[in-house]
Each structure stands twice: as C-alpha cells, then as structure tokens.
C-alpha cells in the first residue's frame, strides 16, 4: 500500500506541476488574442493560423541555418511582419465593425493562410528538434520534466512580463488604451492612432507566432494545428475575461490544470471538461473571471 500511496503522490504532484506548465503555455497562446481584443475590441479568429505559421517559419529557418535559435527568433518576427501587412490592407478596416463581421472575415483569412501553408510546405507535418542543450529531462527525485518545457515556461514568463510592462507601464500602452476608448481624442493629441493600432495588432500576432515556434518541438508543425490552438486560446481568454491580462493567466492555468487532472481520471473527456468549464464560467460570470463589463 505504501508503494501505491507514493505512486499516487508523485502522480498528483506531476499532474499539478504539469498542469501549471501547460497553463503557462496556454496563457501564451491566449495572450495575443486578449491584447488585440482588449485594446481594439477586435475578435481575431485567425489567431490560430498565425500560431501555425510561427511553427512553420521556425521550422524553415532551422532547415536553412541549422540553428534552433535563429528559427525561434525568426518565427515570431516574420509572422509579426505578415501581420503588419495584413493589418494595413485588411484588418484596420474592421475595427469599427460588428464582432460577427470580424469573426467571419478572420475565418476567411484563416482559410487563406492555412491553405497557403499547405501550398508552401506540403501536407506532411514537419518535425522540429529542440536544441541539444535543452533536450532531455530534469530529474528531481522521481519526478522528471523535460528541460525544453521548462524553457518554454521561462520564455513565457519573460515575454508576458515584458508585454505587461509595455502595456501597463509605458506611454505606448497608455496611449493604445486611450486610443481604443476615444480614437479621435488621441489623434487630436498628435498621436498617430492607426500606427498604434497596427503595432498592437502585430504585437498580438507576434505572440501567437512565438507560441507556435516554441511549441513546434513538442507538437511538430502542421497546418491544422491552428484550429486546436484557436479553440484553446479562446477558451483561455473567455474564461479569464476578454481583454484581461490577469484573466488570460488565470484562464490558462485553469485550463492547464483541468486538462492535466482530467487526463488522470477521465482521459477521453478532457475536451468535454474544458468546454464545460468555459460554459459554466460564462454562465456564472457574464464577463469571465476578470473581464470588464
């Protein structure tokens, strides 16, 4: 019985820590979505495909240079640049539109980008290996955790902290927020709101690209990975409250923990649990856990 007990203990410990780790990864997926919504009230259903694009560009640069770090760096940057172009010609026309219109247009954009990925990289998913220094596991007693996952958690913490500081503690963040409330006022103050919005959109998408690049060594790069990521990102953000930074963090952790623990007692039901939790939270709290009304 003692053996059984310690087995369960270490399993619970694993599930908790793994859930937290997963939660942070999900937080990173949702962060860009929530920023774009919070700042510009824009619903981006193409978020998932940017995530997939990040993974593929990361793969491509590694294939060219043989260096993981170049890929990890290039993924988000290239995706961010793509976002700037799309923002210039398409997205900015939608800021004033209904959510329904935004959703439908970005679904169209999602299809265009997904099929383009299939055109460029073919239909067979690609593999990305983590760099040598990060492969293998970290052993703490009986407990093993991949170094690479720890690395993702580290990057997520650094990146999200950076974003938080940028939005909450700099002039940029304040003007963007003011601009979303009253664009005319801000532009009268001599600030170029359209540039500001473009930058914010690109920032959000860059975060999706970063998440995609980071996840590539865990899940590979597949054109269809975006749909699942979009689902998770939305669940995370909606649970926490659309537009809330802290909410996305809470949402990510909740989803990560729910998923990790459900995989223990009702594995085939993880998705049922995740969507039930989301539905329940929206029913009980109209604007998610931390959303503004």
């Amino acid at each position, binding site marked *: 019985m003692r053996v059984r007990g310690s087995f369960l203990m270490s399993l619970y410990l694993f599930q908790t820590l793994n859930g937290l780790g997963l939660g942070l990864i999900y937080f990173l997926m949702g962060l860009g979505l929530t920023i774009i919504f919070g700042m510009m009230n824009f619903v981006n259903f193409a978020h998932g495909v940017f995530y997939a694009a990040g993974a593929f560009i990361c793969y491509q640069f590694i294939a060219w240079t043989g260096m993981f770090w170049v890929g990890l760096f290039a993924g988000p940057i290239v995706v961010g640049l793509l976002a700037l172009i799309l923002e210039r010609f398409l997205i900015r026309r939608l800021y004033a539109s209904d*959510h329904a219109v935004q959703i439908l247009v970005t*679904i169209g954009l*999602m*299809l*265009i980008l997904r*099929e383009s990925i299939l*055109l460029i990289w073919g239909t067979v998913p690609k593999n990305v290996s983590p760099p040598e220094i990060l492969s293998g596991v970290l052993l703490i007693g009986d407990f093993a955790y991949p170094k690479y996952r720890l690395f993702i958690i580290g990057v997520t913490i650094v990146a999200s902290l950076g974003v938080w500081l940028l939005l909450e503690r700099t002039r940029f963040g304040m003007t963007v927020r003011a601009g979303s409330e009253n664009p005319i006022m801000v532009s009268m103050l001599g600030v170029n709101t359209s540039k500001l919005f473009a930058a914010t959109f690109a920032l959000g998408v860059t975060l999706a690209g970063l998440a995609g690049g980071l996840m590539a060594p865990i899940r590979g790069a597949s054109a269809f990975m975006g749909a699942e990521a979009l689902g998770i990102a939305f669940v995370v953000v909606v649970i926490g409250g659309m537009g809330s930074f802290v909410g996305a963090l809470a949402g990510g952790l909740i989803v990560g923990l729910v998923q990790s623990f459900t995989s223990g007692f009702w594995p085939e039901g993880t998705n049922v649990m995740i969507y039930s939790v989301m539905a329940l939270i929206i*029913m009980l709290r109209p604007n998610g856990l931390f959303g503004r009304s």
Partner: protein
Amino acid sequence: MSTSVPFRVHIAASVIIAAALPFLVPSTVLATEILIFGMAVIGCNLLLGYTGLLSFGQALFFGAGAYIASLTAIHWEIGLIPVLLLTILAGAILAAIVGYLAIRRQGIYFVMLTLAFGQLGYYIAFLAEEITGGEDGLLDVPRPPLELPLLPDMTFANDASFYGLTAVIFVLCFLMMQRLVDSPLGSVLKAIRQNEKRAEAIGYQVRLYKIAVFAFSGAITALAGGLYAMMLNFAPLSNIDIETSEQILFMAVLGGLGSLYGSVIGAGVFLVASDFFSELWPRWMLLLGLFLVVVMMFAPGGLWHGLVVGFERLRGRHKTSTEENDHG
C-alpha cells in the same frame, strides 16, 4: 403592409427552384444536398440575418437532427412523417435550450457559448458510441416510407424519388419561413437586429423572441440534418463537427444575409463550387477563404444582393441602394 413581394411570387419562385435545380447541377444527389443545406442555411439566416445572432452551434442542431431521424428510422417503424416530426420537435427543443442559455450573454460571450455547446455536442456524440456509432457514424439509415391516408405507401429508394420528397419538403419549409420573416414575428426579429434596445423599450420581451427564433432555427436545421442522413443512408460524426457550423455560416454569408433566396443561392454556389474546385485543385479552400473575405469586405449583401442590384441596373430603374434592403 410594407412593400413586400406578393406571396404567390414566392410560391412560384420556390417551385421553380426545386423543379429546375436537378437540371442545373451535375447530379441529382448534389441537387438534393443543395436543397437540404439550403434549409439549414435558412435556419442560420433566421438567427444571423434577421435577428443578428451569430451562432456557432448550428452543427449541433444539424447533427442532432441527423441522429434523431436515423435512430427513430432504424429502431421504430413509424413511417416518414412521425420521424420527421420528432426530428423537428427535438431540434426545436434543443435549440430553445441552447438559446435560452446562450442569449443571457452578449457579443463575443454569446458566440463562445454557442461554440461551447456545439463542441460539447460533438464530444458527447463521439463518446456515446453505443448510440451514435461514434467515429463510424450510424450506417444503414433507412428512408422510411410515406404513409398517407387513401394513398398507397410511397418509398424513396432511388435518388430521383428522394429528390422529389426533399423538394416538396423544401418548398413547404421555404414558404413557411418566408411567411415567418414577413409576419409580425419576423418584423419584431428585424427590429431586434436593428435596434435591440428600442425593441425592448417599446415593450417587446426580447429574450422570448430570441428563444423563439432559436427554436425555429433549430427545428429547420434539425429537419435538414435528418433529411441529410436519409439522403446518405448514413449519419456521420462530421455532421455535428464545428466545420459543419462554419460551412453553414459560410453559405449564409456568401448568399446574402436577410434574404431566404440568398440562403438557397449560398448553399447552391458553395456546394457546386466546392464540388467543382475540389476536383481541380486540392487547395480550393483558399479560394473559399478569399470569397469570404471579399464578400464580407466589399459586398456584405452577398450574392443575392449583387443579383438584385444587377437586375435593377439591367432594367434601368436602379434607385437608391437603401430601397433594395426592404425586399430582402
């Protein structure tokens, strides 16, 4: 009252659509599918085009309709009409429940609730293998015979006779729904879409109307799903997948919101085009995406609105663009 098109025109138009369609598309089966999805798209249009509710849960009603019709047809020998009535009823009840829960939230939270219910439906159908067949779907779905008093029983074994059945049901549904959108209820729905606050302020209990329109949408979408299962003799899991919701939405937008003709055109063009392009180019969905973006950005009235404008121009009496909206 308003300058609406006389009802006999709708009767003629829907009969012509149903009669001509098999000759316009490559196969009878495709024609059947177009009418079936036309009905599902009308269900979506009632919500989005007339009431302003974007539902990502349409596949739930479509899939549930397919399962209910299949299960009743497989296990009970009760004839076609009871099977379809049960399907309609189940769809209406399910949609009313989803609607009741989802409309308590606004905007993106509403959309996400419909999405969540849709996803839950999918996973439950997937896990309830014993009932739904899970991933394999329900095979050998029969087409129950139509038992009418005084007439011999009718069966629908071949494609042409099943098309005939679908066409009759389609025309009836189309006309009922056309009646609905021109009715006092339809007027309230349009009012809710245009100005929900005012509708409430002049005394309409908006929530009840939204639940009602959900029920109608669920009923017709489930009926479509049930017919689809009978058409295929098969109820696949993909019926209840989120992609089906997306496709239904897609057809609705493409054809034009706020017009039932738009819904039928949207279903027709989408299905014919996807059939045609999927054989030419594996990446045809890229065109689909492009279509969606272009329609939403530059022609929010969809194909139907484009046709109306084109027709008016041709007749040289194209007036202000505001006037056509009314005909929708």
